[in-house]
């Protein structure tokens, strides 16, 4: 066994780290926090110019041929830097899915514009009555000659207000089993009939509800086969489950350690010297290493040519559950001072632990809830019998 990273991965990591140190300024982080939009066009286009949206693709498709290990290092560094990279993740996911399931026209005209950072995408999967059961999608697409007419509503269309395309899951056949009547589209956001309503979250992030009323799109915007949308979803979901939040967990712990090292109790003792504080900091540090290793294990398996479906799911489940536990423990060690919000003068740790405590609650929900993840691990990993109806 060897836990060290190959020199080329360390070199790429150093390159990414140097870039991020220069471009992810406090101002960038503060602006994302203030607006709730975890996307920064300047940073996005700079990173696109570095070729990092397609870094993992083979050179024949314009990529850098980066290995899964290098890609994990890239993700790790992005999250460690605190960069607002939600947009980068979605753009990369959609482009990658188009590379696999898209038409020649989509590959020729849309992919290059995504990769150059010119345009961005958002995901239109969830609906009011279709969350974890995403195949229950009710947004209708009906064929009309060379066009499709779309009517429906999507929840949590994060970045819709910045995006040029929505990657939209629709129902094209209501008369077959629910997974078999879905079709995916990449709909331009400037198409008439799309309305965006902002939704503000407890974590401070802005997301949206998007409404689709008689939205007409040309058939060339269809991704994959008619009624073949589930297969496209399955392609796209593989890109969502990993331990990306490890970097946020490290930032949280670093923030708490720095605070506990400088803060003093009534008797003038450093808080970090209190065993009650030390135990929780140590526990968070251990969980961070486990999260890190589960993420690298999945990346290593991918590098070895294996498909880390269960292992990537374990990384997502563990990292996000640990993140919440750590945030809970670390806001507690701040005591009542932990209540002051980010931006309040004199807030402990500048209010970042409080902000993190709110933000991290969403991480066990999006990209596959913890319950969905546990179901996958139980059924595919442990071979336990299926627990629910698929109808």
């Amino acid at each position, binding site marked *: 066994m060897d*836990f*060290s990273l190959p020199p080329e991965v360390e070199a790429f990591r150093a390159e990414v780290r140097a870039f991020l140190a220069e471009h992810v300024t406090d101002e960038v982080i503060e602006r994302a926090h203030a607006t709730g939009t975890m996307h920064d066009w300047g940073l996005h286009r700079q990173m696109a110019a570095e070729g990092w949206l397609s870094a993992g693709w083979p050179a024949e498709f314009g990529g850098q041929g980066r290995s899964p290990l290098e890609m994990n290092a890239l993700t790790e560094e992005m999250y460690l830097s605190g960069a607002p990279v939600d947009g980068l993740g979605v753009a990369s996911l959609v482009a990658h899915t188009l590379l696999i399931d898209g038409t020649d026209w989509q590959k020729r005209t849309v992919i290059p514009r995504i990769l150059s950072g010119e345009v961005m995408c958002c995901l239109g999967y969830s609906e009011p009555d279709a969350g974890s059961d995403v195949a229950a999608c009710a947004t209708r697409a009906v064929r009309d000659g060379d066009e499709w007419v779309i009517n429906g509503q999507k929840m949590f269309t994060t970045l819709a207000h910045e995006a040029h395309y929505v990657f939209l899951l629709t129902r094209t056949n209501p008369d077959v089993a629910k997974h078999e009547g879905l079709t995916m589209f990449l709909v331009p956001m400037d198409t008439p009939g799309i309305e965006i309503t902002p939704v503000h979250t407890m974590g401070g992030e802005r997301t949206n509800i998007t409404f689709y009323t008689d939205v007409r799109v040309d058939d060339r915007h269809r991704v994959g086969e008619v009624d073949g949308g589930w297969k496209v979803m399955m392609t796209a979901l593989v890109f969502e489950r990993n331990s990306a939040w490890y970097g946020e967990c490290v930032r949280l712990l670093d923030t708490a350690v720095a605070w506990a090292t400088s803060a003093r109790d009534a008797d003038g003792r450093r808080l970090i010297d209190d065993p009650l504080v030390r*135990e929780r900091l140590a526990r968070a540090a251990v969980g961070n290493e486990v999260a890190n*290793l589960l993420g690298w294990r999945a990346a290593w398996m991918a590098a070895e040519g294996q498909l880390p479906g269960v292992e990537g799911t374990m990384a997502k*489940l563990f990292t996000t559950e640990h993140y919440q536990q750590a945030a809970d423990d670390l806001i507690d060690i701040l005591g009542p001072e932990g209540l002051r919000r980010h931006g309040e003068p004199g807030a402990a740790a500048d209010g970042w632990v409080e902000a993190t405590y709110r933000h991290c609650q969403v991480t066990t929900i999006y990209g596959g809830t913890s319950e969905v993840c546990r179901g996958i691990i*139980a059924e595919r*990993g442990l071979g336990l019998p299926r627990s629910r109806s698929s109808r």
Partner: protein
Amino acid sequence: MDLALSGEQEALRDTVARFFSKVASAERVRAAEPLGFDAAVWRGLADMGVPTMAADGGATLADVSVVAREAGAHLAPVPIVEAAVTNRLLTRCAHAVDDTTVRTLALRPATGGRAALVPGGAVAAEVVVLGGGDLLLVRPGPTGERRAPANLGSAPLADIDITAGRRSLLTPADGSAVDEHARALDEWRALTASWLVGLGRAALDLGVSYVKDRRQFGVPIGSFQAVQHRLADLATALDGAALLADKAVWTLDTDAPGAATFPAMAFSYCGEAAQRAAAASLHLHGGYGFMEEYDIQLHFRRAKAARLVLADPCRELVGLADRLFGPVETSTGAGR
């Protein structure tokens, strides 16, 4: 990066797994209680050269870890981790070692002339003890100098009177006695972590196969999400624990950054994961799990015992904090 065993390690794993399946079956594990030692199992490992395999640089701690994980999975009634670590420590003290002699070390310094609850101490011919800042090699006599109390994990623990019997002073080639003991203790932490991963996974396997077979309300209880999700969390925790134990062993073998922290992290986390897995698996057996006749109680008792024999787990975490964040400042700061 390579997270797989080498070909040689796979062969070693298969060999010891076959050996334990034959010689350390659940019946034999039970028969070895309450002492927790089976001389035939020890002789088999000695014949394979396991106790000294990593003593002279011939094999690595990673190789011993492969054996430790299988030993944990089978609850093999032998102090193999203690012996491997002690033989390495004795080699660093230019003291000759061999495979047949059972050796161990006291995890905590002796106090009042007594080393308490020494793992393997009930059956070891030679015991390394840190006492008064010195490393002593104690050879307990046949009577009166050690007492083996019945204990939760049915392990061969003993309280050893180090003032009686024969003893000699050990001199480390370099480093102080205290430092050498600390190094041995970190090796013990990393290898015991690996042993606990083996135990935890075996306990999880028992639970998983039980809930696949056991039917209530007309269906296997393994189809209930309340059952599935608990097992999924534990499978995840144990995978993380295995990676952490492997990395801890690797940091020690290669003197990599993290060698000062990973053994303690692995011991803490692997112990917790194994204990949770054994407890959940026992619980999912229902009333049967509480019966002596079912094997899961063997895992349950040993998981807790292997953690607690070193220290209160919370104190271990506080000790880890010293390594991660620096020692506690004793003087008060500028606020006074």
